[in-house]
């Protein structure tokens, strides 16, 4: 068991994050953090009150105004059906944010639960659970996520669930290793020593202390999830039309890359900015927790 434990104990997988980087120089970056939160705030406002930001519909357009380049009337131009691109981005934020949120929630909840159980119960339960995670990792992620979408049906939330399931293993491994680390620490030993019950110690000490890196990963996953949903759109497994979801906008807009560059560039830029913001916030969470 122990050797495989080493595999699992070591730092987390693929989506592992935005480390504290070069800490000394980051302390100067507080304005960056402010901007990051500002970006998140604006996007959240878009999701709740899209009508404040655009007069156009996100799903219906004027056929005569198709494929207009960015300009005065349509700030970011229009698509092949004469729909305002900015309006689609703003109205699409609800879909994308929900999608990313669901993806992260599924991964976080399932993964953390598995990791917590495995890490704190140890022994046979640990072995069985972590072999289960191995099985999950050993099946190509592509097959898993496409199959889940086929079974659940095409749509942003279902695609998000598929993406979330794909990240369960990562969250499980990370939270398990964090739990193990915290469990071995002196104060938890002490808590047990002073007669704390297992669940109490878990709740009071293990969970709060292992939450930091897990939450940081969660914030980071936010951006990764939008990317993953976009890739599914590229592969033909995106939400049905006329859903204006960011990933789908990038995927569909790529067809016009040589003729109408704005269709893929602007949604792409929005995603880059949001992901960078999420990363920045993820970093600050990690830093705060360490």
């Amino acid at each position, binding site marked *: 068991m122990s050797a495989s434990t080493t595999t699992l104990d070591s730092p987390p997988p693929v989506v592992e994050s935005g480390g504290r980087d070069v800490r000394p120089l980051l302390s100067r970056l507080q304005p960056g953090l402010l901007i990051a939160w500002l970006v998140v705030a604006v996007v959240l406002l878009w999701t709740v009150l899209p009508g404040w930001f655009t007069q156009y519909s996100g799903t219906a357009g004027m056929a005569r105004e198709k494929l207009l380049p960015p300009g005065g009337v349509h700030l970011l131009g229009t698509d092949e059906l004469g729909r305002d691109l900015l309006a689609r981005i703003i109205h699409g934020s609800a879909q994308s944010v929900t999608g990313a949120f669901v993806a992260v929630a599924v991964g976080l909840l399932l993964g953390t639960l598995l990791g917590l159980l495995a890490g704190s119960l140890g022994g046979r339960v640990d072995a069985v659970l972590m072999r289960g995670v191995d099985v999950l990792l050993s099946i190509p992620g592509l*097959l898993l996520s496409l199959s889940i979408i086929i079974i659940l049906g095409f749509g942003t939330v279902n695609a998000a669930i598929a993406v979330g399931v794909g990240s369960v293993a990562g969250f499980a491994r990370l939270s398990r290793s964090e739990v193990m680390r915290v469990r071995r620490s002196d104060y938890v030993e002490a808590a047990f020593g002073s007669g704390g019950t297992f669940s109490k110690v878990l709740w009071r000490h293990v969970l709060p202390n292992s939450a930091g890196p897990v939450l940081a990963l969660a914030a980071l996953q936010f951006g990764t999830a939008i990317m993953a949903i976009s890739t599914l759109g590229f592969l033909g497994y995106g939400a049905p039309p006329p859903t204006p979801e960011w990933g789908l906008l990038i995927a569909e807009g790529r067809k016009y890359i040589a003729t109408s560059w704005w269709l893929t560039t602007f949604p792409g830029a929005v995603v880059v900015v949001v992901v960078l913001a999420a990363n920045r916030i993820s970093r600050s969470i990690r830093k705060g927790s360490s």
Partner: protein
Amino acid sequence: MPSYLAGRIGQALLVLWAAFTLSFILLQALPGDALLIKYQNPDMGLSPEQIAEIRASYGADQSLVLQYLHTLGNFLTGNLGYSVSASVPVLDQLATNLPATARLAGLGFAAAVLLAVGIAVLANLARFAWLRTAIASLPSLFISVPVFWLGIVLIQVFSFRLKLIPVINPPEWQGLILPVLTLAIPISAPLAQVLLRSMDDVLTQPFISVARARGASLPWILWHHVARNALLPTLTIAGILFGELIGGAVVTETVFGRSGLGQLTQQAVDNQDASVLQAIVVLAAAVFVVVNLIIDLIYPLVDPRLKKSLGANA
């Protein structure tokens, strides 16, 4: 040690079997199947009776348990069957696509490591704070660009505008440059972040100041202290990524029109080509367990602290 190894191999076989079984169940849960998709298509002009006959000839009218045992038996005897949608032996498909994916994934991973090391070192060597910050945020940028977009843009720029590298019928080594780059950029991001963090951790240790005071150069310190620290996490990520790469290369393969397991997987899912998918799952699971087994065996060599626990187990 041998008994430890036997245990690990046993576990590995168990994971293989579980992956096989799980994927069989998963495929059964999908609506329709390969035969339905192919023959129920009105374009085939087949009557319901003719379709039923075809289904029977493929054994699709048997019970699920029988089909499962049949499939399992075939796999154990090395008979991978035929692809229903493409009408070629699955073995031929694997033989065409596996080397292509292995090359792409192998080079992609190597390039990702180089890129990650480059970023980490540059971030620490850069003279200006703003430059360091910019370099350190490259990984975040890398994971926020969709791979298909990156691939298409690289092709538009390097192949169509600058006409440096052809996409159609390129010489093999030349044809690999853009796809490898496309694949490497997103993978390098998590690696670079791990490296940046390890460096950060090491460089703030007291002994570094001592070493520097004694006149050690920064590159020397990075090489001697950071490299070893970063090797473990890199290996771990490698183990997971390699399995991911088999399916994860699909976008790169589609954009660049390369054959490979990713594309094969997607097409097989589209057509619900069960025999192809089962073969891919077993292959991917085998690669996954073998790579992880190797990594587990390498760990103690890299990090002496782990030798003891391994020894205790053996």
